[in-house]
């Protein structure tokens, strides 16, 4: 009984997030990550197959970018969070590590904290949308692992990120 309620609740949340993403997409020119293809019926049979991690256009998006000193997930990444949450809900043995990163500005230890905050924000959104917390591990690398070693906003914006890394697919 309790389980059913939880699943229903999660399904509602996912549907809600999907709707949010749609709304956010309409007025703006299409953002990079493709929105969830359709407001698919949320049944327990599931919309994803195991191989979809490598082929599905939404599930292949694994990086969420953040604004300076911010930890909230921007509207254009809600769809990405929603599809990973749905995948994790559907495959309870799947595991992800959420690697939080910061740009080089500010001190290294503080940036470790900032990276962890971002990782926790994504973990919170994934759990709210159907993943279970036992599937999620947050690791912060702070500013230690930049993808772009430049010293300007274009580099910094690529480095302020959370990477979703699957350690087990199903």
């Amino acid at each position, binding site marked *: 009984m309790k389980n059913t309620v939880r699943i229903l609740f999660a399904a509602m949340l996912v549907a809600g997030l999907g709707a949010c993403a749609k709304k956010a997409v309409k007025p703006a020119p299409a953002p990079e990550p493709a929105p969830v293809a359709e407001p698919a019926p949320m049944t327990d049979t599931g919309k994803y197959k195991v191989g979809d991690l490598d082929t599905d256009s939404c599930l292949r998006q694994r990086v969420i970018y953040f604004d300076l*000193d911010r930890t909230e997930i921007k509207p254009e990444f809600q769809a990405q969070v929603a599809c990973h949450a749905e995948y994790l809900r559907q495959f309870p043995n799947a595991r992800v590590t959420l690697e939080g990163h910061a740009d*080089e*500005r*500010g*001190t*290294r*230890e*503080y940036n*470790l*904290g*900032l990276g*962890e*905050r971002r990782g926790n924000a994504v973990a919170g959104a994934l759990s709210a949308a159907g993943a279970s917390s036992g599937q999620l591990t*947050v*690791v*912060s*690398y*702070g500013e*230690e*692992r930049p*993808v772009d*070693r430049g*010293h300007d906003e274009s580099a910094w914006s690529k480095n302020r990120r959370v990477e979703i890394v699957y350690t087990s697919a199903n």
Partner: protein
Amino acid sequence: MRNRTLIRFGLLLLLFAGANGAWAQGLTIEINDGSRTADPIAVVPFAFEGAGLPPETDVSEIVRADLARSGKFFTLARRDIVEFPTRESEVKFATWRLLKQNYLVVGRIADAGDGALRVEFELFDVARQSRMIGLAISGQRTAMRDVAHQIADLIYEKILGVRGAFWTRIAYVTSVGLGQNTQYALMVADSDGFNPQVVVRSREPLMSPAWSPDGRRLAYVSFERGNSSVYLQDLSTGSRELISAQKGINGGPAFSPDGSKLALNLSYAGSPDIYVMDLATRKSTKLTNHFAIDVEAAWMPDGRSLVFTSDRSGKPQLYEVSAAGGDASRLTFQGQYNARATICCDGKKIAMAQGNGNVYRITVFDRTTGTYTEISPGNVDESPSFAPNGSMVLYAATEGPRGVLYAVSADGRVRQRLVLADGDVREPAWGPFRQR
């Protein structure tokens, strides 16, 4: 001679680096700026009076460079030295008065038996025509850099009344390569950047080296387990211990002044807070308890309180908390971003990385006057670390595509660059005084 030394150190590094030869470049030194209020001093090249070959280390040149780097002295260029006395009987004070020198150093090097060398030196007050120091220090040929730094320390202390900090060591982190191919190394070198030794090498990030007060151990953060964890390593034996590997962040190690405790920032309880671990029992006490990010603890010299970084007011600022716990009080109110405190001078001065907009510079906060003095000119300057005598601050900066280390005099007027070519060098930590 100098060149040869540099090349030798390059070779040494190559040996350490093994197959990864690309980063074996050694550290070079540049004086960027002179100080106008410094004391003029002439260091005459020391004569070699032993049998066989002179030492490869130019002892008097190291003494000269140390004194120049401190910002407290103007050293006479070798081309302006016209007489080469080696002992008191050969000194003509009129010559040095004419050259407007306040102080004069002469010396000679002789055999001390068993392959060791004996360096005798004398310091003179030119105006008074009097000898201030006459001493001899012996050491193996391979230890001549140590001998030179000790001589510079004695001269510095005799003239200024403050213990010199040239014969000390620094720790720092290097990284070379991008992405999956990045190689990290925790290094220890002499205070002038020479004699670099690898303490630990890793393919995962290394961070935040902290010296034990006796200079024998380093605590640091390593990601080798996949998450940040804190290790304690003995420098002479190389043996090391895992100190903290909790869930979440394990970072910011800092030894208490008596060496019995280690402050850490840990986030296993939700958000990073400051903890103090008793090293004998390994029991930790939670010192701060706030949902904000509390990191980078630094001990006051009396061990009674700690200064740390917290963003509990929005942006990172420095706070002070008693070592017994309780409420923290905010210390910094000028500047948008103040973090990573380093403390000197009985707790009267705190240097920090201060950020305003996109510009981060090293700033010294004087607690007695309440004034802030910016001592670095870069855009991404961080990780300040005071020399144990408070005379200089070591910090990390970015120049073009690479990281560099600077040693700047505490008043900000004289800077020396320690560059690692083709790599990134950061997170410097100045070690304690060594036992003479």
